[in-house]
C-alpha cells in the first residue's frame, strides 16, 4: 500500500476498490434487468450487458456489464430456452443471481451464477397480454377470424423460411394427400426467427396483397418445435397486420406450449406445418363429401319425383272411367228427379186451378137473381128503380113486383117504417 502523500497508481486504486467490494459485497444478489446485449465467445463464455430503463421516459437509468462463464453458460443456455421458449438473447427481461466483481483492467462486472426463467416467462406473458388487450381495444383482434373460410383453399400463399424444414413438410403433406386433391402452394420467404420476423412477414403479406385475387388463403409456418423462440410472433405491428389481412391466415408455427399473439389473431391456428396442411386437406374433403352427398341426394330426389309422377298418373288413369260413371249416374238421377217433380208439380197446379174454378162457378150461380126469385124472394121496382127502402115510395105510387114466374102491379096504400 502506498503512503498517504504519494499518489496511487491506477492499478493500486482499482485494486483497493476491488478489495473493498470483495469484502463488503461478497454475497450473491438476485437482480432484475433487461438484456441489452448478449455475446457468446468461441470459448463458450457469454458477455452480457444489463440495463434498467425508466419505463415512462424510456431512458436508461442503470447499466452494467456481466459475464456468464462457460461452465455456467453451458447449463444456463439450454435451461433458459427450455423454460421460456426463448433463446437467452437481447431484449428479454431477466432475473439473475450475480456476484459483484471489479477488475483492475475491466472495471465493474457482474458474474452471473444463476437465472430464474419464470421471471422472463411472466414478463413475456405480461407483454403479450398488453398487446392482446390493445388489439381488442382497437377492435381488430377478431377481424381475420370473422372472414369466411374459402370452400376450396387451394391457392395457398405460404410465408415461411425456405430453408426451414417446416415448408418442406407442409408441401409434402399437401402433395401426398391420399385423395388426390390439387393444391397450389407458393412460397413467400421470410425469416422465421430472430428480430427480422416482424418485418419479413409484414413485407410478405404486402407482396401477397398485391395480387390478392390469386390466393385463397395465407399460411404462416415454421418447423422447429417447442424449443424455438416465440416472442417474435408477439409484436403488435405483426398481429395488427395479420388481423386486418383480407384473406384468412392459418398459422403453424410449431410451438406446443404457448400460443403467440399471431396465433391469437389468425383465422385458424394449427400446431405444426403438417397440421396446417391436414387442415387444408380436410376442407377439401368436406367439399368432396358435400358433392357426393349432392349427387346421391339429387338422384334420390329425382327418383322420388319420377315415382310420385308415376303414381299420380296411375291413379288418374284408374280414377278416370270410374269418375265418369259416377258422374253419369249422378246426372241421370238428377234428371229423373227433376222430371218426376215436374209432373207432380204440374198435376198439383192443375188440380188447384180446377178447384178454384169450381168454387167461382158455385158462388156465381149462388148469386143469380133467378135462383133467388125461385127461392121465394121477390124484387120490387118503383118508376123502374129497384126498391130498397120505404123512403123511396109514397102512398099511391104504382110499384111493380117481380117474382119467379111474372110481375105483379100494385098501388101503395100505406107504408110503415120499422122501429
Amino acid at each position: 500500500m502506498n503512503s498517504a502523500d504519494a499518489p496511487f497508481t491506477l492499478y493500486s486504486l482499482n485494486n483497493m476498490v476491488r478489495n473493498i467490494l470483495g469484502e463488503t459485497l461478497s454475497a450473491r444478489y438476485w437482480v432484475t434487468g433487461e438484456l441489452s446485449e448478449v455475446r457468446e465467445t468461441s470459448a463458450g463464455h457469454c458477455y452480457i450487458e444489463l440495463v434498467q430503463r425508466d419505463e415512462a421516459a424510456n431512458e436508461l437509468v442503470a447499466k452494467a456489464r456481466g459475464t456468464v462463464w462457460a461452465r455456467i453458460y453451458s447449463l444456463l443456455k439450454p435451461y433458459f430456452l427450455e423454460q421460456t421458449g426463448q433463446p437467452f438473447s437481447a431484449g428479454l427481461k431477466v432475473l439473475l443471481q450475480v456476484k459483484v466483481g471489479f477488475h483492475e483492467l475491466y472495471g465493474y462486472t457482474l458474474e452471473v451464477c444463476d437465472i430464474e426463467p419464470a421471471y422472463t416467462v411472466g414478463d413475456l406473458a405480461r407483454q403479450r397480454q398488453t398487446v392482446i388487450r390493445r388489439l381488442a381495444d382497437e377492435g381488430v383482434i377478431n377481424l381475420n377470424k370473422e372472414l369466411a373460410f374459402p370452400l376450396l383453399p387451394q391457392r395457398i400463399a405460404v410465408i415461411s423460411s425456405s430453408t426451414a424444414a417446416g415448408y418442406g413438410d407442409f408441401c409434402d403433406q399437401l402433395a401426398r394427400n391420399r385423395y388426390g386433391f390439387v393444391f397450389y402452394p407458393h412460397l413467400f420467404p421470410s425469416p422465421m426467427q430472430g428480430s427480422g420476423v416482424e418485418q419479413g412477414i409484414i413485407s410478405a403479406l404486402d407482396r401477397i396483397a398485391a395480387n390478392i385475387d390469386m390466393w385463397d388463403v395465407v399460411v404462416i409456418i415454421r418447423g422447429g418445435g417447442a424449443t424455438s423462440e416465440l416472442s417474435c410472433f408477439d409484436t403488435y405491428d405483426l398481429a395488427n397486420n395479420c388481423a386486418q389481412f383480407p384473406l384468412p391466415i392459418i398459422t403453424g408455427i410449431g410451438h406446443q406450449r404457448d400460443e403467440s399473439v399471431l396465433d391469437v389473431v389468425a383465422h385458424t391456428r394449427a400446431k405444426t406445418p403438417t397440421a396446417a396442411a391436414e387442415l387444408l386437406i380436410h376442407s377439401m374433403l368436406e367439399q368432396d363429401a358435400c358433392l357426393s352427398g349432392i349427387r346421391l341426394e339429387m338422384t334420390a330426389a329425382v327418383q322420388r319425383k319420377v315415382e310420385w309422377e308415376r303414381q299420380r298418373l296411375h291413379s288418374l288413369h284408374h280414377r278416370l272411367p270410374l269418375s265418369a260413371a259416377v258422374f253419369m249416374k249422378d246426372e241421370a238421377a238428377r234428371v229423373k228427379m227433376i222430371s218426376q217433380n215436374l209432373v207432380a208439380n204440374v198435376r198439383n197446379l192443375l188440380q188447384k186451378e180446377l178447384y178454384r174454378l169450381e168454387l167461382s162457378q158455385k158462388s156465381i150461380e149462388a148469386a143469380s137473381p133467378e135462383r133467388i126469385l125461385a127461392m121465394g124472394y121477390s124484387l120490387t121496382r118503383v118508376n123502374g128503380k129497384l126498391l130498397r127502402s120505404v123512403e123511396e115510395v109514397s102512398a099511391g105510387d104504382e110499384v111493380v113486383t117481380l117474382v119467379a114466374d111474372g110481375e105483379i102491379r100494385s098501388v101503395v096504400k100505406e107504408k110503415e117504417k120499422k122501429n
Partner: protein
Amino acid sequence: MKKMTYTQAMARLEEIMALVQNGKMDIDELAGALKEASALVQFCRSRLFTVDEEVKALLDEISPEVVE
C-alpha cells in the same frame, strides 16, 4: 359455365336441389335439371382433383421469390 366459380356452381347446385326436393320442378324440366346438376358436380369435382393450367400459368408468372 366456363367462367363460373366453384362457389357459384355450388349455389346453383343447391338451387336445383331445392327445386327437385320440394317437388316444384316440372317433370318436363327434370331431365334438363339433372343434366345441369350432373355437369355442375363434374365441374366442381374437377376443381378438386384436376390441375388448373390457368392457375398454374398465373403462379408461374409471379417471379419466384428470392431465397432470403
